[in-house]
């Protein structure tokens, strides 16, 4: 039985949550101030304003802490994680031009990392990106120059993000749609989506047997009775799919029917999607091990009426099925669940439904296909696997709808592109 927290501790926790209402910290005794400072750091809530509040108290200990932790006024909250920042690229496909709110909201989490921003080639306006980030921006001209007309792949709309995956040279990629903001967990703390994704990727997945207490590698959990010991080391996790609060990733018919439904349920779990089980893996909030499965995320299925809202695309669902099939074949894992992002309301489901409903129909063909596709033992890399899947798509689905024949072609093009542009040793310049 754990000792319940003291009244003081509860008060400090409450202060952390209500920092935005506090204007003066100088009345606080030193030891409480330090405790508050450390808990603020840990909660990821050290914004510029809050830092100034602490500095304004004039207390020496606060100053020593700030110096020791090397906190600078251009905010970088020091979070105790084991991430090696230089192993990660954050790739954002910019479908809207004004990225100011997006970048500023993500600043406490993103500012440590290198970012690749890919501008949708169809976007006319200039991108507005605030200062203070380490980033590379790729526009239509860069895409044309590096990839040119050599490919049938169109990096337009949401598919522009794949260009970022192609040119990155890091081990891990975290990719979030530009209409998503950091979410808050059940305790009100900001969710560090990057840290959670990386944790997911760095801990084993358990696809061969379902653990009823979910991710056995998360703190406070383990394998349950009846879980075979030989399967407890798990396999490498290649893909981490996060979820969404507020505007969940429903299709247009569903959202049109339930116009006011918003997802408010924060499910505190990460689970491995079992082997051979398929799921619609949304591209809105994902991270993956680029070294291992990069080529398997394919910008291939382009709907005839594809648009600039997720309701008007299926490219990520196709890509996700492909990745899952490849992972199952190669003995890799896919996790789903945390982290959550907050997806802002955007667009009109009914308008999207009127414009594009092909995607919903096509899934009836897509799912049985991926459920039945089998890859030969000779396919031992992600590239090999993609080529095999493309062949199967052409044979089995090519005659059903021209969109599939094009997808098969795009998948083969993608593998070629990956070999020429995606794996060269020199980092691509802007």
């Amino acid at each position, binding site marked *: 039985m754990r000792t319940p927290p003291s009244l003081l501790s509860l008060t400090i926790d409450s202060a952390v949550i209500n920092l935005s209402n506090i204007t003066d910290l100088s009345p606080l005794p030193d030891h409480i101030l330090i405790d508050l400072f450390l808990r603020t750091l840990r909660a990821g809530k050290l914004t510029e304003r809050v830092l100034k509040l602490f500095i304004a108290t004039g207390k020496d200990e606060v100053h020593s802490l700030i110096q020791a932790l090397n906190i600078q006024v251009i905010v970088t909250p020091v979070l105790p994680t084991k991430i090696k920042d230089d192993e990660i690229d954050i790739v954002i496909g910019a479908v809207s031009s004004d990225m100011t709110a997006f970048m500023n909201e993500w600043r406490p989490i993103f500012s440590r990392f290198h970012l690749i921003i890919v501008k949708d080639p169809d976007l006319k306006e200039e991108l507005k990106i605030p200062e203070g980030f380490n980033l590379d921006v790729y526009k239509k001209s860069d895409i044309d120059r590096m990839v040119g007309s050599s490919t049938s792949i169109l990096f337009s709309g949401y598919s522009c993000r794949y260009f970022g995956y192609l040119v990155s040279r890091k081990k891990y990629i975290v990719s979030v749609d530009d209409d998503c903001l950091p979410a808050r967990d059940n305790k009100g703390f900001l969710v560090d989506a990057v840290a959670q994704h990386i944790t997911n990727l760095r801990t084993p997945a358990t696809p061969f047997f379902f653990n009823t*207490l979910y991710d056995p590698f*998360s703190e*406070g959990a383990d394998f*349950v*009775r*009846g*879980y075979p010991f030989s399967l407890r080391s798990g396999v490498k996790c290649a893909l981490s799919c996060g979820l969404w609060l507020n505007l969940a990733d429903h299709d247009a018919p569903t959202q049109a029917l339930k116009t006011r439904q918003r997802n408010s349920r924060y499910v505190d779990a990460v689970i491995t999607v079992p082997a*051979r089980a*398929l799921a*619609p893996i949304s591209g809105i909030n994902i991270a993956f091990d680029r070294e291992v499965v990069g080529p398997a995320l394919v910008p291939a299925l382009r709907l005839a009426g594809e648009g600039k809202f997720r309701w008007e695309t299926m490219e990520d669902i196709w890509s996700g099925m492909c990745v899952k099939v490849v992972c199952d074949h190669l003995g890799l894992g896919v996790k789903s669940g945390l982290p959550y992002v907050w997806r802002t309301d955007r667009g009109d489901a009914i308008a999207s439904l009127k414009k594009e409903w092909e995607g919903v129909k096509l899934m009836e063909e897509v799912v049985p296909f991926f459920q039945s596709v089998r890859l030969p033992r000779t396919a031992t890399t992600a590239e090999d696997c993609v080529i095999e899947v493309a062949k199967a798509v052409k044979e089995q689905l090519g005659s059903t709808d021209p969109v599939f024949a094009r997808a098969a072609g795009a998948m083969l093009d993608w593998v070629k592109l990956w070999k020429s542009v995606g794996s060269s040793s020199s980092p691509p310049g802007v």
Partner: protein
Amino acid sequence: MATSSAKPTPLLKDELDIVIPTIRNLDFLEMWRPFFEKYHLIIVQDGDPSKTIRVPDGFDYELYNRNDINRILGPKASCISFKDSACRCFGYLVSKKKYIFTIDDDCFVAKDPSGKDINALEQHIKNLLTPSTPHFFNTLYDPYREGADFVRGYPFSLRGGAPTAVSHGLWLNIPDYDAPTQLVKPLERNTRYVDAVMTVPKGTLFPMCGMNLAFDRELIGPAMYFGLMGDGQPIGRYDDMWAGWCMKVICDHLGLGVKTGLPYIWHSKASNPFVNLKKEYNGIFWQEKAIPFFQSVVLPKDCTTVQKCYLALADQVKTKLGEVDPYFIKLADAMVTWIEAWDEVNSPGGKPAAKTPNGTS
């Protein structure tokens, strides 16, 4: 499309039995009284039949001890375990209801994160009365829950789901760990309330714990045999695991669904890990052989009922796992005996098994 219902969950008080195995006492029922009082209980008393187990006043119940089991099943009683909670499956056998909820006598009412008492039975009923989605995983978990739905990309042809045969609940406080894990982490407590129900996909096995479990007896009852454990057997604490593997294979074959997740109960008692280790010892090794067996077993197409599936499975257990240890040959025979007993007791002109109810509300 999933429809969220704002309708109250039906009580099903005349269609559901609560089966409780006990060897100690039933004091825990007091805490469950507000939730259980309307239902009929089937108490299976393990251990010494001469001991009297007192049932708290006001509950409507039937109680069976070893003498009753022997009397009702005759020679077939050999398939019911002694000195192990596996004996609970006798309760499933004699029940006349459509649904069963089973719970251990060291499981209490848990609280959700808002501090409210969790009505575990109500959640199990919700789980059983809504479809499962075994053919395609929904990343937003149970789409039939209020506030949830299917995600983009989920084929509409699969949104009707499959009938739910089993609802597997979880536990806060003492988690269901095996003995080695208990020894290494004696102080670990499950404090994470995961607000989700999900379907275990087709083709995927899981460890089914019998502490907090509900199922549709009409859909899957005969598959819920909890095996030969306890006194005189080389293994214990694998009864529910065995039932779970058999059940899942049959559900997959018949197109039925299994849900896991909510509801939570509060598990209060951590059993002695050294005693557990002795009981589980063989199981830990045998499960390494049993799992690949269950993962690869194929049931013949003409097995269209649970009983037929179960008998086909028993046959394969005998031939394939019999080589691992003679215990499995005994177990396979017991599986057949179980089905014979089930059919005998549950056939229209079958032997009346139920005693007159001991207690009336």
